[in-house]
């Protein structure tokens, strides 16, 4: 059933409405597990739309298999999604920087508070993101090392290529995931693809993982699924490559995945001078799991992340 989670009257005869679709068994026992699947916090991230569609379609196709409650929130930032803007259009405000929200705060904080209130009580929450318009990510689960012990078994269920355990210092307190974990709702962040696009292959990979999780949680009655064993990485095992120069990045790799030390990742060029400013090579043997998509880079811009052991310059 589609329900309104929170709404706000906009100035000229329109409402902003955050919705969810609740799918649950015909007869409730009161002991059902509940999962919340959230996406669309960033209006430029669209993979979650396909994921929501496909999960709902499959749940509806076999309602007898549903043994728990599945709450799907496809459009946490409806105006951002509708206008293709990452933040909330009127305020330029990143919705994932206002949690846990505030009923007496600005509009975004009010909406955030309503969403958090609605999710509380879930046994699990998945927050699905698609990177941004600048870099592409392989399907990965991200979690904060404070909660790693509790969350890692769930992260492994999701059929991701990669699980990245952040140090808690780099975690932003004002995100939905941080707030919910803080309020005892185990929450995993999924990142995949790139902004303004849908990558069906990645989406299907995650959907398989989500069904695996539903089965493991007793929410979906079905045969067990074999999922990928993700690479599990902590922050120290990831090489982050930033642009050392301002210029235009031209990629030399066609796809992400396994990469050897010294492999040419791409160049930062200076168009008007016709020269290469920086040649970028993989610093390690490993897996390239983040890659620049948007070519215009200022010094510092993220070009790639490579997971791996051996680093160049190390013996």
């Amino acid at each position, binding site marked *: 059933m589609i329900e309104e989670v929170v709404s706000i009257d906009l100035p000229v005869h329109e409402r902003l409405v955050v919705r969810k679709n609740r799918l649950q068994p015909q007869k409730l026992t009161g002991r059902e597990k509940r999962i919340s699947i959230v996406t669309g916090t960033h209006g430029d991230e669209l993979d979650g739309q396909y994921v929501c569609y496909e999960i709902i379609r499959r749940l509806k196709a076999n309602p007898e298999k549903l043994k728990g409650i599945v709450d799907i929130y496809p459009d946490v930032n409806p105006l951002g999604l509708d206008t293709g803007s990452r933040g909330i259009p009127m305020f330029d405000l990143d919705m994932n920087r206002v949690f846990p929200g505030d009923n007496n705060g600005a509009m975004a904080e009010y909406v955030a508070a309503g969403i958090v209130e609605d999710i509380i009580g879930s046994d699990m929450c998945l927050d699905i993101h698609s990177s941004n318009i600048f870099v592409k990510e392989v399907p990965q689960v991200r979690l904060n090392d404070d909660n790693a012990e509790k969350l890692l078994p769930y992260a492994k269920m999701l059929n991701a290529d990669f699980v990245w355990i952040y140090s808690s210092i780099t975690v932003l307190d004002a995100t939905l995931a941080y707030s919910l974990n803080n309020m005892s709702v185990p929450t995993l962040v999924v990142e995949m693809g790139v902004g303004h696009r849908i990558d069906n292959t990645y989406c299907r990979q995650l959907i398989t993982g989500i069904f695996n999780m539903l089965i493991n949680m007793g929410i979906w009655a079905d045969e067990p699924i074999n999922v990928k064993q993700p690479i599990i990485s902590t922050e120290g095992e990831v090489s982050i490559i930033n642009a050392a120069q301002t210029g235009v990045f031209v990629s030399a790799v066609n796809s992400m995945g396994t990469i050897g030390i010294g492999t040419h990742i791409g160049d930062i060029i200076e168009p008007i001078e016709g020269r290469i400013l920086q040649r970028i090579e993989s610093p390690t043997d490993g897996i390239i799991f983040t890659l620049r998509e948007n070519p215009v880079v200022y*010094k510092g811009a993220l070009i790639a992340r490579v997971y791996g052991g051996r680093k160049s310059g190390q013996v």
Partner: protein
Amino acid sequence: MRKEVLYQLKGLYREDFIIEGYRFGGEENSACIVGALRGNEMQQLYICSQLIKVLKDLEAHGAITHGNGILVVPSANSYSMNVGKRFWALDNIDINRTFPGDVNGDTTKQIAAQLFDKVKGYNYGIQFASFYMQGDFIPHVRMMETGYQSASLANLFGLPYVVIRKPKPMDTVTLNYNWQMNGTNAFSIYTSSTDLVDDASARQAVSSVLRFLTRMGILKYNNHSGYIASVINEYDLLPVKSYDAGFYRRLKNPGDPVFHGDLIAEVIDPYEGMVKSQIFSQTDGIVFFAHTAPMVMGNEVVYKIIRRMHE
């Protein structure tokens, strides 16, 4: 006065991005003043320009006391100002949500880290700030309640109010918060304007900074004494919300007294022109914050009122 390049970033299709600093007086790191971090903070930039003008003059007349040094950074975001954007134009990131930054991080994190490196270590840090909610304030000094804040120092600006804000998660990445965590006494000064220049409130901001610097022994200057500030806790301010959405008719301004039952705003239907709802004050007090925009959403905070305490 010495002009310094605090940070320089090579431009691609533009001239280089440069953060300029203006250094006055001696070698000690006594006070650092930061203006615009966002591209729309025109008033904040204007205040700094006026302050630099006065400090130049005071320095020439030997009014900066021995050894004390003052750094003024008028804008850390000229790139956004020049293209009419509020945040870093390429990726729309708010530099004032990026502190303390990271020298190996993304562009805006590098900018924040390099800037923070240049503005940290001062005894006093003063930022002309803008609020994330759209509206006008009574001029005030704002401090975060970090455990290191000192309301009695904030009082020395002589502005009518000192507001203490308990930091929300989103505040921990601001300049003010990181200054305080790093041992600088940090103050944010809010005047009654951001996108437009308001000369009177800019003059008030400049005098408040000069007054503070004089009282801290950094300047020798004749100030009039200013206000004795009331210290208020942000969460004690009474929020008044709209009920309906539409055109917004504001009937009170920051600083106005209000009484319980006063009509303080009206919301008008955007198509039919009739008053949809009236907003009344639920308390006796003084308007501290007032929404400024032709329109309002439903359930939006339109006023914050300082409640008058009855003995």
